[in-house]
């Protein structure tokens, strides 16, 4: 029986993962951590411990790993915690997104019971460009553009921090570069984009996008948790379609506009409403498209996306 520590357990993906782990007979105990002050929607369960954890504080991370996690004999850490707001900047955001990964890997390496760390990364780490394929494999160039928003730079750094330790640490490290979950409540960029009364899109472009469901992301994390070996794996979603078709299925009218106008419009929308969608974060993929190739994850641990997005207006052909 294996015990698992899940950070970011109050996020929809974390919450569903905890449920999944609790229903798995191979799992002895689940230690679920979320931010201080988060509501605690996790169930009361004899095999579940819930504790608040501020990932920006390395001492707290240390004390959880070498306190309750060691006492429970945690073997696998699933790190889902990250800054939820892409507009956040500064040292605190960096600490939550990057330094937390560094701490967890450092600590896991010398931990007496942890043998495997699964880290949730994101397709946003990939560079999108004219000279690059739309279909992205794990060796695709990363987005190292210094003009990218901090959230992108931080996620790339966190991803690379994990990759740099593969094969060198005592524990196995798995990085899952996931497609975005298109589900209300996940705080995703496309959810916010499509949930507006209308969406602005680049004039003359209709890129291919790939979106996932929480259910599929949880399935991939679950498979990676119980798998063997380490590496970087793309986790695509079930739905691959043009942006306008996605908007159509979501029930959101789109208006084509020049990029500069779109940038200004969404910056104002953020200022006025606090919305999360950032044009700077999505500019390239909403021009040229990006679709994750999940062949490696399929071959390594049998992940295949099986759950289509629950499109509000349905899909004629999905399923």
């Amino acid at each position, binding site marked *: 029986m294996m015990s698992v520590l899940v950070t970011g357990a109050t996020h929809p993906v974390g919450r569903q993962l905890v449920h999944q782990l609790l229903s798995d007979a191979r799992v002895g105990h689940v230690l679920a951590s979320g931010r201080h002050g988060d509501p605690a929607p996790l169930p009361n369960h004899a095999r579940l411990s819930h504790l608040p954890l501020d990932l920006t504080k390395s001492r707290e991370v240390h004390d959880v790993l070498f306190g309750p996690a060691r006492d429970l004999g945690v073997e696998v850490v699933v790190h889902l915690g990250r800054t939820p707001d892409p507009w956040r900047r500064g040292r605190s955001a960096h600490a939550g997104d990057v330094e937390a990964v560094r701490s967890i890997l450092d600590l896991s390496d010398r931990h007496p019971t942890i043998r495997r760390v699964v880290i949730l990364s994101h397709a946003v780490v990939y560079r999108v460009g004219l000279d690059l394929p739309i*279909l992205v494999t794990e060796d695709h160039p990363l987005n190292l553009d210094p003009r990218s928003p901090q959230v992108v730079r931080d996620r790339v750094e966190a991803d690379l921090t994990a990759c740099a330790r593969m094969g060198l640490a005592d524990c196995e490290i798995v990085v899952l570069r996931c497609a975005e979950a298109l589900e209300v409540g996940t705080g995703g960029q496309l959810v916010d984009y499509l949930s507006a009364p209308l969406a602005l899109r680049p004039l003359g472009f209709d890129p291919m996008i790939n979106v996932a469901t929480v259910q599929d992301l949880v399935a991939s994390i679950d498979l990676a948790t119980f798998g063997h070996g380490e590496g970087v794996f793309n986790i695509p979603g079930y739905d691959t379609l*043009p942006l306008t078709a996605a908007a159509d299925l979501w029930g959101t009218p789109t208006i084509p506009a020049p990029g500069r106008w779109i940038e200004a419009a969404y910056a104002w929308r953020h200022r006025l409403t606090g919305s999360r969608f950032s044009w700077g974060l999505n500019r390239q993929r909403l021009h040229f498209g990006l679709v994750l190739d999940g062949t490696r994850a399929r071959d390594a641990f049998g992940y295949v996306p099986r759950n289509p997005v629950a499109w509000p207006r349905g899909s004629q052909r999905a399923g």
Partner: protein
Amino acid sequence: MPLHPALARAVAAALSGDEALERSDRLHFTDAGHGWDRFGLHPDYVALGNAVAGPLYDHWFRVRSEGHEHIPTTGAAVLAGNHSGTLPLDGAMVWMDVVRHTEPPRVPRPVADYFVSTLPFLSTLFARCGVVGGSRGNARALLDAGELLLIFPEGVPGIGKRFSERYQLQNWRVGHVELAIRHGAPVIPFGLVGAEEQMPQIARIPSPVGALPYIPIPATLLPLPVRYHLAYGEPIHFDATPDQADDPVVVREGARRVRDAVARLLVRGLSRREGIFT
């Protein structure tokens, strides 16, 4: 709003009747779940492309083609031939010829230069018809999926060649042979006679837009109604293992074979034609 697939289908039906739709309905392609493949191809847009370009194929360039039996009906393969004409109408006509004359119908995947992806509207329309950006990863993924690539190894220098250089093959790149060897795919050479005279280029000016290589200044406002003569040659199978795709000597030799085959098809086509417009 972009053209909805149903509207594209309706326009195709109105322009060309049910035949184009019937062929596009039988196209083999890998549906990623909503009717598009992962690169953006949609059969209804193939029908639309066929319908829109049909008058050019049938009445303007009056394409005559032969050797379709050399195009494999299934599996990964690479079509490689000469490129010319200032505007990439040669690519469109070869694309159309393959869609029309293969059974079951196959849609070739033209591999376009990077700048094509920057062109508003056109880049989307091209992608719906099967065009992909010219990155190694795209080509590799398509061959892995058993698709038929359409590659012009001369690239932009081919389409931009001077009138005095017509039918002289420009620097023949070798990437298509490397891909073919790595995937165990044959290369089907083709020679296209006619396009090299369609739009003589008298000058070119530097492009004010970064992604465009240059702006051509043609001698005519419209392409001349030259007749296209398109011939496909016998498939070239490379007697090489996938590992040898990394051997520069093997790849260069393979590319020389393809280039020679295309040159022979051009010589034969030129010797047979009676005039530029006939």
